[in-house]
């Protein structure tokens, strides 16, 4: 395509001349000329099929009618799309489509947004000539979420092609032949399709419908609110459909810069919790003594405790943490309260996976200034996914990468402690020794410098050297490493080594971007606002005040220095890498305030629980993985729960420390002024597709960063093995994991993986473990019980475990003071 762009073709459609780029489909050319050609099987995501025959047109000099969707425009083509002949043909094709289609629009979920219904009306087909028996086949469940209504299917195969051409899952196929042909699954066990829900809108009729939405509402009576998905950091646009205070379904909102209309099944289907909230009132006390209190009383208790502890132990005895799913406006208010109003230094925003303090300049610069937008990533010659199972960690990004790489010369290469299993995996993959990314990085850097492409990572080295533009996406295996900061510095070193090699070999330097695949919806925003001063100055200088780190904060709490811990939207027992440190911290503090939406381990342990309104009621902004600032909109759901801003404001008033704004708009307008990339925006002028937060620096400043990185000394040696603990723990994140949102939504248990200790077959025989057997996985820090599973994709010498298992969190095996976690696996008697 690229080479042909720019060339134009002129043709005549219904007597009207149009000029379109070469390579344009006739259907699109007609649309550009103002003539809509009906289509069922064609779709912009899919290769043309030419099967439904709705798009028949007359092309001069051709003996038969031709399908416009499969025809590419040619210079001088003369086309008729509106004539008696064409109208007759369309009517005939519609009649064929309707033969076996039931007359049940009034009870069909698609009614009101159905392409078949619309065209039938447009063509005035009111009477059927068909008096024979219609074919019927009982409904089937394609996935736990998708119900197939066979009678309505018009066999356009959009669904099958989506699974083949876009997601690559090959979930669906066609069975049988002729009029009896029908869509079916292969019926084999295996990873389902994480994007299957998109087939609901893709299906032009009501054949594939959502089991969760089935018979729940008619499209025209739903209230629609466009907002941003809050389930991962990709930040797809979604539309929330509500009626009578209930969230009934989520559909894609279509943002070309982010999702292009795809959303993942988690984003689409894990919404039931919003109608199923566990708390409606603040609660005081633990366990059996817990009781509901009024907001008035709750505020008094909180204010009383804060005052008491500040008076007794000083303001630094207050510790505050805000999780990475809050809005930017929440974070601004949070900083203000913690730092200015309460006066404590012990506050932190985010999950604290990366410790910025060790080398703030290099790390922060790479986080802010080397990052790429999603569009830039998609256009890179090389995409390198490091320590990451992209489809689990950033699903729609993975899908779009797969889609743009299809049939192109560009490449996706993986580098990880395991070979990502399942249907979605990089074209080329390299494994490093589990837990030893730094050693691998050392080898890669040496190979790049030496121009040696024969080693273990030879292919990767060569591609890095050759790629004009590359995007590195690094994920959980590095982020959850105790030395995540060192891993990042190593990636930076790889980047600069590649730059130097290219320059030394007479090539233009090119560009390599680095994006962390952070887990939570606004983890990037959390990063921005945890480092605001630094960003506002925007220059490569060292920040004066070393930041409080999550690790430092928890250690202070465990040591008894922090007496009151106030957690907002975070359960560190699950998210922090070292569970025992969090346990000790929680045990040591005198008073625990937890402010959250759903129930989890820390809400259970809170001395004071402050429930807040859920995501569908939230206003504010998020920053996504690709540094796009997007606006959240609240639906029409009325709640009596306050927002984070409201809770904090009331608390401030109670404390007699004045008040701050509770409207995100006011706060946003303040931060926007401080941040050059968005200083032209106000809350109400944020575009629907968002706005890029572009912090990139000029060449000169980047040069300073390069120097800074060069100064860093890294130790690339392998970690020593540990006697008695022969395996390395590898933690992996899954899209469907056992989080509170999942637990409180319908059907999620059907897709959430079991708690598994995934091992290489050789290790299983070595340690006498059978597939499916119950085992304990034990480190010097703790033990968890799991089910062993034989997996070829796991490297020998390691065990791969999901890091989100309630009751068996991998964080209980890990110590924040060790840089690699060794474990042993034993069968349970």
């Amino acid at each position, binding site marked *: 395509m690229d080479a042909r762009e720019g060339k134009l073709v002129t043709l005549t459609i219904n007597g009207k001349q149009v000029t379109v780029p070469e390579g344009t489909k006739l259907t699109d050319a007609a649309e550009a000329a103002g003539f809509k050609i009906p289509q069922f099987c064609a779709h912009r995501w899919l290769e*043309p*099929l*030419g*099967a*439904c*025959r*709705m798009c*028949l047109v007359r092309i001069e000099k051709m*003996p*038969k*009618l031709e*399908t416009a969707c*499969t025809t590419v425009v040619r210079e001088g083509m003369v086309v008729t799309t509106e004539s008696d002949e064409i109208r007759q*043909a369309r009517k*005939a*094709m519609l*009649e*064929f*489509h309707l*033969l*076996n289609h039931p007359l049940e629009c009034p009870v069909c979920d698609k009614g009101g947004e159905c392409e078949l219904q619309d065209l039938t009306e447009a063509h005035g087909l009111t009477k059927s*000539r*068909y008096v*024979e*028996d219609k*074919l019927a086949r009982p409904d089937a469940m394609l996935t736990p979420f998708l119900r197939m209504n066979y009678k309505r299917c*018009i*066999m356009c*195969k959009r669904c099958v092609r989506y699974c083949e051409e876009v997601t690559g899952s090959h979930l669906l*196929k*066609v069975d*049988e*032949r*002729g*009029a*009896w*042909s029908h869509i079916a699954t292969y019926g084999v066990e295996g990873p389902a399709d994480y994007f299957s829900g998109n087939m609901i809108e893709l299906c032009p009729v009501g054949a594939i419908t959502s089991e969760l939405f089935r018979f729940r509402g008619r499209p025209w009576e739903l209230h629609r609110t466009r907002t941003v998905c809050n389930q991962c950091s990709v930040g797809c646009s979604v539309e929330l459909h509500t009626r009578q205070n209930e969230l009934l379904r989520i559909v894609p909102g279509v943002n070309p810069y982010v999702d292009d209309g795809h959303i993942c099944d988690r984003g689409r289907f894990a919404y039931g919790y919003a109608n199923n909230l566990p708390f409606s009132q603040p609660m005081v006390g633990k366990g059996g003594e817990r009781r509901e209190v009024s907001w008035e009383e709750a505020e008094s208790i909180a204010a009383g405790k804060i005052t008491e502890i500040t008076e007794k132990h000083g303001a630094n005895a207050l510790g505050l943490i805000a999780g990475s799913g809050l809005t930017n406006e929440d974070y601004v208010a949070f900083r203000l309260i913690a730092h200015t109003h309460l006066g404590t230094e012990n506050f932190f925003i985010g999950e604290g996976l990366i410790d910025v303090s060790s080398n703030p300049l290099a790390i922060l610069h790479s986080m802010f200034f080397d990052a790429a937008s999603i569009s830039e990533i998609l256009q890179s010659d090389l995409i390198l996914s490091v320590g990451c199972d992209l489809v689990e960690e950033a699903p729609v990004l993975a899908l779009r990468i797969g889609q743009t790489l299809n049939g192109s010369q560009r490449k996706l290469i993986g580098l990880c402690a395991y070979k990502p299993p399942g249907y979605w995996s990089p074209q080329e993959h390299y494994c490093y020794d589990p837990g030893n990314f730094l050693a691998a990085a050392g080898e890669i850097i040496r190979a790049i410098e030496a121009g040696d492409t024969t080693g273990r990572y030879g292919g990767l080295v060569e591609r890095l050297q050759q790629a004009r533009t590359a995007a590195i996406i690094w994920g959980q295996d590095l982020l959850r490493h105790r030395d995540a900061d060192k891993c990042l510095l190593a990636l930076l070193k790889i980047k600069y080594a590649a730059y130097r090699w290219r320059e030394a070999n007479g090539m233009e330097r090119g560009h390599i971007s680095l994006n962390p695949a952070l887990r939570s919806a606004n983890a990037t925003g959390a990063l921005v606002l945890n480092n605001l001063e630094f960003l506002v100055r925007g220059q490569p200088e060292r920040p004066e005040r070393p930041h409080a780190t999550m690790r430092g904060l928890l250690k202070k709490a465990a040591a008894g220095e922090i007496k009151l811990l106030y957690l907002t939207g975070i359960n560190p027992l699950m998210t922090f890498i070292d569970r025992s440190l969090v346990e000790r911290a929680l045990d040591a503090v005198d008073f625990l305030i937890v402010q959250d939406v759903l129930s989890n381990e820390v809400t259970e342990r809170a001395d004071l629980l402050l429930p807040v309104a859920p995501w569908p009621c939230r206003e504010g902004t998020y920053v996504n993985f690709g540094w796009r600032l997007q606006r959240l909109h609240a639906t029409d759901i009325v709640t009596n729960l306050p927002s984070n801003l409201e809770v904090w404001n009331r608390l401030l008033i109670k404390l007699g420390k004045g008040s701050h704004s509770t409207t995100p708009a006011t706060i946003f307008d303040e931060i926007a002024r401080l941040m050059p990339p968005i200083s032209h925006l106000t809350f109400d002028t944020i575009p629907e597709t968002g706005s890029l937060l572009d912090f990139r620096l000029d060449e000169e400043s980047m040069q300073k960063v390069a120097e800074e990185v060069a100064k860093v000394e890294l130790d690339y040696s392998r970690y020593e093995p540990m006697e008695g603990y022969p395996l390395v723990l590898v933690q992996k994140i899954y899209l469907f994991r056992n989080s509170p949102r999942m637990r409180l939504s319908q059907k999620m248990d059907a897709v959430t993986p079991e708690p598994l200790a995934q091992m290489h077959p050789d290790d299983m025989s070595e340690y006498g473990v059978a597939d499916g057997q119950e085992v304990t996985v034990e480190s010097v820090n703790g033990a968890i019980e799991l089910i062993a599973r034989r997996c070829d994709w796991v490297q020998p010498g390691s065990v791969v475990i999901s890091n989100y298992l309630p009751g068996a969190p991998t964080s209980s095996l890990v110590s924040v003071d060790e840089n690699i976690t060794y474990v042993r696996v034993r069968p349970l008697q």
Partner: protein
Amino acid sequence: MTEQTKVVMRLDGVGDVHRLDVYEANGGYRALRKALAEMKPEEVIEEVKKSGLRGKGGAGFPAGVKWSFVPKDYPGPKYLACNADEGEPGTFKDRWILENNPHEMIEGCIICAYAVGLSHIYVYCRGEFYEGKRRIEQAAQEAYVKGYLGDNILGSGFSTHLTVHTGAGSYECGEETALLTSLEGGRGHPRIKPPFPASEGAWGMPTVVNNVETLATVPAVIANGAEWHAGMGTEKSKGIKMVCVSGHVERPGIYEVEFGVPISGIICDLAGGVWQGRKLKGYFPGGSSTPVLPPEKAELPYDYESIAEAGSMLGSGAIIAFDEETDVVRMAEVIARFYAWESCGKCTPCREGTRWMLQIYERILKGGGRKEDLDILLSICDNLEFRSLCPFGDAAVGVVRSTINLYRDEYEEYIREHKVYRRKFVPVRH
């Protein structure tokens, strides 16, 4: 008196021709030796072009012209797909070649591969041809051993290989693009043309698709020269054709004739005429896909042009004759069922239209016909023909439209009198 002109079938009657030694003893692989030793690839294509050899799979497209469409300096591999999926009702000539004269076809394949520069030959064999598949595989084995296949064939420096692939019993897989998709391991669904297989065929590579009989004629064309072949037949339909005669004739079978002989000569002189002394009611000139012609049109010369002019097609060369006692409505229903069951289901008009027509036939034969049914049938034919994705849809309407036009009174009788056809077999699928 119409006589046969045996070319592909010239060794019919010689025992064990499927064996390499017997085939060689009867002049086998001489054409290949000649091509490799004396002719440049372009010269082979030129010779086949000049001979006027036309495809015998149905469309009658000139073989040499098709070969010349394949890009010469294509950077990747190019393939030959030999279409041995013979599924058209009434056609059984390819089966005879596969079982009785496999080396003739293989020799033709190798010559074609040499001429066009094809590195691999895929023989796509109909799934039910158990014997034929075995014979081709044995013959290919022998040819490999003897150095006719494989690397550096007969020391010429030219290499090509052969693989036999069996289908799974779908008529549509005989359509060339469906064949390629099925060969690739996909569902037997046709693809939109263009691109034509000669530019983008199997696995996206340029691919020649030719019928078994077409390829089996090639050795004779090379051995005897283009003029010899062009000297037979008519002006536009040159050469010979294996004609499968079936239906109500005394001696059904395969008869190889020059194009241009009278059709009545094939039916009467060669196949022994209509059986039991009955009269001819009509016939399909080229298999079940071709419109039925009335007895008055049995005097036509047997060539593509004359039959087309009469409103039908020579097709794959299968004459199905039916006698005066035939229940035409029932006959049409049988064929309509074939098309309904064999439609691949990819495109809407064919998928839906073929079953609709079958349902109407079934209702008429049960005594439930309505006055408007014939108009509806004809209008389904109009809506389906030339509007489906592949020519299957056109094939499905031939019998319906032609029998309604020729024997309308029989249809009307069924409808008027609510006549019921007494079935011997009940079709299973609904």
